[in-house]
């Protein structure tokens, strides 16, 4: 649906804005990523509340992860996660072979260094979603080849 384009454009503008204001205030890259991630966190919290209003209670952590990989990812990024791996000790790796927010950029090495900027918001989104489902976590993402990326979720025992 066309809303996807709208969100993508807004997301890009968001990144531009955060990095431009960083330039003026002389912030480093890390601070910008944190800012984007925090914004994603707030959005993720709100989104998951709306989304799971009528869903049944989740049986366990793995169930929550599967929900994130299937329903949550489908509604936000229009496709499911391609691969979910876990060590059953609180670490989950979600692999998306064609991440929507990176799909518009050329594959190959040229923009690889800028890719993390485009993942920060989504990391926050996942972290916020999990947080409101009662799961505290740290979410990071990495890209080795565009547009495939891996999200790593580390569950924090409270």
């Amino acid at each position: 649906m066309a809303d996807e384009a709208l969100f993508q454009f807004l997301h890009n503008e968001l990144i531009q804005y955060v990095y431009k204001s960083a330039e003026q205030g002389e912030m480093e890259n890390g601070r910008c990523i944190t800012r984007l991630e925090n914004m994603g966190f707030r959005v993720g919290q709100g989104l998951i509340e709306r989304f799971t209003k009528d869903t049944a209670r989740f049986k366990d952590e793995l169930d929550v992860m599967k929900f994130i990989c299937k329903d949550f990812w489908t509604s936000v990024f229009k496709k499911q996660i391609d691969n979910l791996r876990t060590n059953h000790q609180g670490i989950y790796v979600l692999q998306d072979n064609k991440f929507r927010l990176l799909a518009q950029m050329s594959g190959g090495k040229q923009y690889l260094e800028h890719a993390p900027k485009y993942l920060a918001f989504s990391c926050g989104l996942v972290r916020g979603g999990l947080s409101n489902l009662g799961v505290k976590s740290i979410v990071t993402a990495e890209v080795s080849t565009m547009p495939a990326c891996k999200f790593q979720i580390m569950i924090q025992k409270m």
Partner: protein
Amino acid sequence: MSRQGNRGTEGKKMLWYLPFISPSASMHLMNSELFTLTYGALVTQLCKDYENDEEVNKQLDKMGYNMGVRLIEDFLARSSVGRCHDFRETADVIAKVAFKMYLGITPSVTNWSPAGDEFSLILESNPLVDFVELPDNHNGLIYSNLLCGVLRGALEMVQMAVDVKFAQDTLRGDNVTEIRMKFIKRIEENIPVGDE
């Protein structure tokens, strides 16, 4: 996939190919909430960064403009709307096709000025402000100012200079949201020297 829409406007028949609305309308709702919430996070961040509301309004307009210049291409690619012959047609396309496509609402076009160069878009509901309340210390904030920038940027790319602003805003107590659009001039395409 496309659905043909027939609309008669003052005797003139216009055919628009509206994008196919999928049966899973809840999915549509879901994604518009993503946009609404992200927009909210953005405005919150801007309010934190800038001291006064005027600056925030300006930033929103600028960001909207940047989005608009890209959105117009996306719009033209998705819909098969041809060139508009006059400002009235432009107004109809904006209200009935563009708004419907991106925000899922159809504002009404009213209040035409006698010269036909100014009109209002009346939005009964504004999806951007779905979960929003303005706090007391932000009376000057035009929350949805991004829309003004988007419209301005998009129309500039199709050679129209327009002035867009909010006349009424439900967040500030009015009954409806009203966007006033004024046609300023047609932008002449700059043909490089030496080209015929």
